[in-house]
């Protein structure tokens, strides 16, 4: 397993894709941090109270999980789909034919690479947002435990998105299809689904079990939740539901994609 892990890390570090995604994520998170911090500290036109204090800080600092998770998700998915796109799956399975080990090493390596996305993405949103919150709002709250814990958990959640990504990639080994599905689901389907579920009383509880809602529950704060889009699960159940998505996808992928003949 150790050899398989080193091999996976070398696969990551020897290609450019992941750090291009990382740089784009950092720039995007810094930009969103600035924009969100400004919008949080503006007096609403209707005269109601501005979102302030800890809530504003949390919303801005966990943007990485709320809006930036598509980057680690794509990176994780493509770490699997690239094997099929470039047929490196053949030499990979020749080097070690144990397919459980292959998938396991990919999942673990993705979490570690995902941590880099978590740290960079979170630092970028903090760097973009904190100065503005401190300047125009009620403070940056960077030493407040109620802020720091969710921020650290946001790093973990972003890392787990890469884990979920490997699951998605094993489920949909076609690279183009995987990218389309990830983009469509994260940018379009899930937000609409969530809005729709929340607006139907009988289904409101279901929205909490969507992947992004589960990841926000793990963090304990989220972009959508702060917009009033429904209640979240508790932290531990949320974390379990979130992890279950990754594991479920990976297990299904193991028994479909990775059980098939490699031709």
């Amino acid at each position, binding site marked *: 397993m*150790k*050899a*398989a892990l*080193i*091999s996976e890390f*070398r*696969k990551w570090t*020897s*290609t*450019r*894709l992941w750090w291009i995604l990382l740089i784009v994520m950092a720039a995007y998170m810094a930009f969103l941090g600035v924009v969100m911090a400004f919008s949080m500290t503006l007096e609403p036109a209707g005269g109601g109270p501005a979102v302030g204090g800890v809530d504003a800080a949390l919303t801005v600092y966990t943007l990485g999980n709320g809006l930036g998770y598509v980057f680690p998700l794509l990176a994780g998915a493509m770490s699997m789909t*690239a094997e099929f796109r*470039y*047929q*490196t799956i*053949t*030499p*990979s*399975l*020749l*080097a*070690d*034919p*144990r397919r459980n080990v292959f998938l396991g090493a990919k999942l673990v390596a993705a979490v570690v690479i995902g941590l880099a996305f978590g740290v960079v993405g979170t630092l970028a949103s903090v760097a973009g947002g904190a100065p503005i919150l401190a300047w125009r709002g009620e403070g940056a709250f960077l030493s407040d435990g109620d802020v720091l814990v969710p921020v650290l958990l946001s790093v973990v959640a972003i890392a787990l998105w890469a884990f979920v990504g490997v699951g998605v990639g094993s489920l949909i080994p076609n690279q183009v299809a995987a990218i389309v599905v990830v983009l469509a689901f994260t940018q379009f389907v899930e937000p609409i689904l969530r809005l729709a579920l929340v607006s139907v009383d009988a289904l409101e509880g279901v929205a909490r079990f969507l992947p992004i809602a589960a990841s926000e529950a793990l963090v304990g704060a989220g972009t959508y939740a702060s917009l009033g889009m429904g209640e979240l699960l508790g932290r531990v159940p949320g974390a379990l539901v979130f992890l279950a998505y990754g594991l479920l996808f990976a297990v299904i992928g193991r028994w479909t994609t990775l059980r098939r*003949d*490699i*031709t």
Partner: protein
Amino acid sequence: MISVQNLTKTFGSVRAVDDLSFDVRPGVVTGFLGPNGAGKTTTLRMLLGLVSPTSGQATIGGKEYAAIPQPARVVGAALEAASFHPGRTGLDHLRVFAPQVGVSDQRCRELLDMVGLADAAKRRVGGYSLGMRQRLALATTLLGDPPVLILDEPANGLDPGGIRWLRELLRFFAGQGRTVLVSSHVLSEVQQTVDDVVIIAQGRLVHASPLGDLAAQASRHVEVVSPTGEALKAVLDAQGWTYEVASRDGVHGFRVSDVAAAQVGAAAFAAGVELHALTQQEVELEDVFLQLTGQTQNVAHVGDATQEVAA
């Protein structure tokens, strides 16, 4: 060393490999030959545990590939030239697989040097020529210094110098007592490299023997032309030779099988038959290969098939 027994693989209704059995012995280079689509790659993929057989089994040193601990130290296999991430450098490609083989970066560099890619080590594989990819694939198979080498169409894309280099390398490995199995769809490409041949067509074994035994199957025939066709025909009949009539434009020609020109000439001379042409036709090994694998338009066979349909 390599043993394939009653191996069968069906994809839907297609029998890609059909009850195939053969053995590959160590110390020689074995050519695994057949036209494109004959089932060579599918067979190799089953041998390497990438494709599961419908029935039968394929073993290396008595074990299935997946049952070999650290298989890359025992078997070096290269399947297609396309199995590279284009964004990875040649050196990094080797470094990716080095941990499972248990070798160092130094070994990766040595191998690149050995296959003539030392200067391209830091270049992305996307910019490599087909020949360079073949060399890199070969370097990958050699990482673990394995006693068994399995190479799928390794000569594809190599220039004549590269093919010669590959031939000498494979002969060298066989000389060290390693088992070397090389697939190709053209016999002439590996004719000077291989000691044994395993020939398949449509998933079935059509011939397996040392190359010399295949050469013995290469028949020869004589083309003979006479202005007096009936007289010559009588001579050929008297000798009991098999022949085809190949008359054209009023010239009486015959194609006599498995004889030497001298024999035909002597028989005609003895019978007082005038000859206008007497040509020895040697059949190339490649022709035997094409015939065995059904890649020739054989008139006689077409005729047989028509009769069968009519019957």
